[in-house]
C-alpha cells in the first residue's frame, strides 16, 4: 500500500468518525469526485461502519441491571430493614422510659426493658389505721416459739408457732 493510499485511508477514517476538520472534509470530497477508486473505498468503509454499528448494537445491547445485581440489591435491602429494626429495638432497650404505648403504661417504671417480661403483680398492700398499740409478744422454748399477733379486737390474738422445720398458724386465741 502506497503512502497516498495510507493517507486516504486515514482521512476516510477521520471523516467517518467525525473527527476531521472542515478543510479535510473538503479535501476528501474533492478527491472522491475526481478519483473513482477513492470513492469506492470510501463507500466500502462507510457501509462497513454502518453495518458494524448495527451488528454491535444488536449483538451486545441488553436490558440494564442483570438479575444477579437486582437480587443482590434485594438482599442488601432486606438486611437493611432487619438492621434498622434491630437498631430501634436497641434504642428501646437502652431507654425503656421513652415508651409511650398505653399498653405498657401500667408497667413499673424500673422495668429493665421494653422486651422484658412484665413484672408479677402482687397483692396491693393497703395501710390500715391501728386503733391500739400491738404488743410484741413472743413466747419461746429452745426448739419452738410462738408469735402472738394481736388483732383489732382487744384480747384476740393470732398464734403462730415457729420451730426449726416449719412455721404454721396454730390457732386464734381469744383470751389468755
Amino acid at each position, binding site marked *: 500500500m502506497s503512502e497516498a493510499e495510507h493517507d486516504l*485511508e*486515514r482521512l476516510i*477514517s*477521520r471523516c467517518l*468518525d*467525525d*473527527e*476531521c476538520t*472542515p478543510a479535510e*472534509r473538503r479535501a476528501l470530497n474533492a478527491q472522491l469526485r475526481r478519483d473513482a477508486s477513492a470513492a*469506492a473505498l470510501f*463507500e*466500502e*468503509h*462507510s*457501509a*462497513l*461502519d454502518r*453495518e*458494524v*454499528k*448495527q*451488528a*454491535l*448494537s*444488536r*449483538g*451486545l*445491547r*441488553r436490558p*440494564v*441491571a*442483570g*438479575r*444477579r*445485581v437486582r437480587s*443482590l*440489591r434485594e438482599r*442488601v*435491602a432486606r438486611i*437493611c430493614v432487619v438492621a434498622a429494626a434491630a437498631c430501634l429495638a436497641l434504642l428501646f432497650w437502652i431507654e425503656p422510659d421513652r415508651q409511650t404505648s398505653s399498653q405498657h403504661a401500667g408497667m413499673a417504671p424500673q422495668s429493665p426493658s421494653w422486651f422484658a417480661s412484665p413484672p408479677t403483680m402482687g397483692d396491693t398492700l393497703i395501710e390500715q389505721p391501728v386503733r391500739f398499740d400491738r404488743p410484741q409478744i413472743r413466747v419461746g422454748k429452745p426448739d419452738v416459739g410462738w408469735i402472738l399477733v394481736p388483732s383489732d379486737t382487744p384480747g384476740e390474738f393470732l398464734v403462730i408457732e415457729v420451730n426449726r422445720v416449719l412455721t404454721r398458724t396454730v390457732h386464734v386465741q381469744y383470751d389468755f
Partner: protein
Amino acid sequence: MDVWGRESSKDGMTETIVDVEMAHALVNEAQRGSRPAVDRLVRQHEGWVRGVIYGVTGRRDLVDDVAQQVWTQVWQRLGSLNDPRRLRAWLYTVARNAAIDASQDRRRKRALGLESVAERIGDVQTAGPVRLALGDELHETLLRAVEALPALYREPFVLRHLEDWSYAEIGELLNLSVETVETRLVRARRLLRETLNGKVEP
C-alpha cells in the same frame, strides 16, 4: 448544528459543568446506598462497560456474565471510590480486569476440557447456525470479523462503533493519545475490510 453535525450551544460549557456536578451527585448518592442512584449509574454506563468487556474478550457469550460480575463488584466496592471524577476510569479498570479474568478462566477450562455443556452450547449459539437462520448472516459475519481483530484494535473500535465516542474520550479511557487511537482505528478498519473481502456491499 456545527460543521461536523454536532449540536452546538452557546451555553455548552455551563451544560458540561452541570453534567459533571450531576454525575458527582449521582455517585455520592449511590455510595450512600441509594438504589435508584445505582440503577441510574448502571443505565448510564452499562453500554460502554459491555463494549469494554467485548473488546477485551472478543466473545459475546462472556459479555452478560462478566457484566453482571462487574456490576456486582461495583455495588460492593463503590464506597472505595474516593474521587467521583475517576468513576469512568475506575469502572474501566474493574471491567477490564473482570474481562481478562473471565478470558483466562475460559482458556484454562478449555485447555483442561472442563468447559460446561452450557458454555459449549453458548459457543454454538453465538457462532452457529441458530443465528444465521434468523437472517443475521451478515451481522454474524461482521461480528466474527470484529472478534478476530487483535484486542489492541478491537477495544477502541468497539467503543467507537458501539458508543460513538470521540477519539479523545476513547484515549482518556484507554490511557492513549488521540493519535494512537486514530492509528488503531485505521488499522482495525483495514483489517476488517481485508477479512471481509467485499462481503459488505456499499
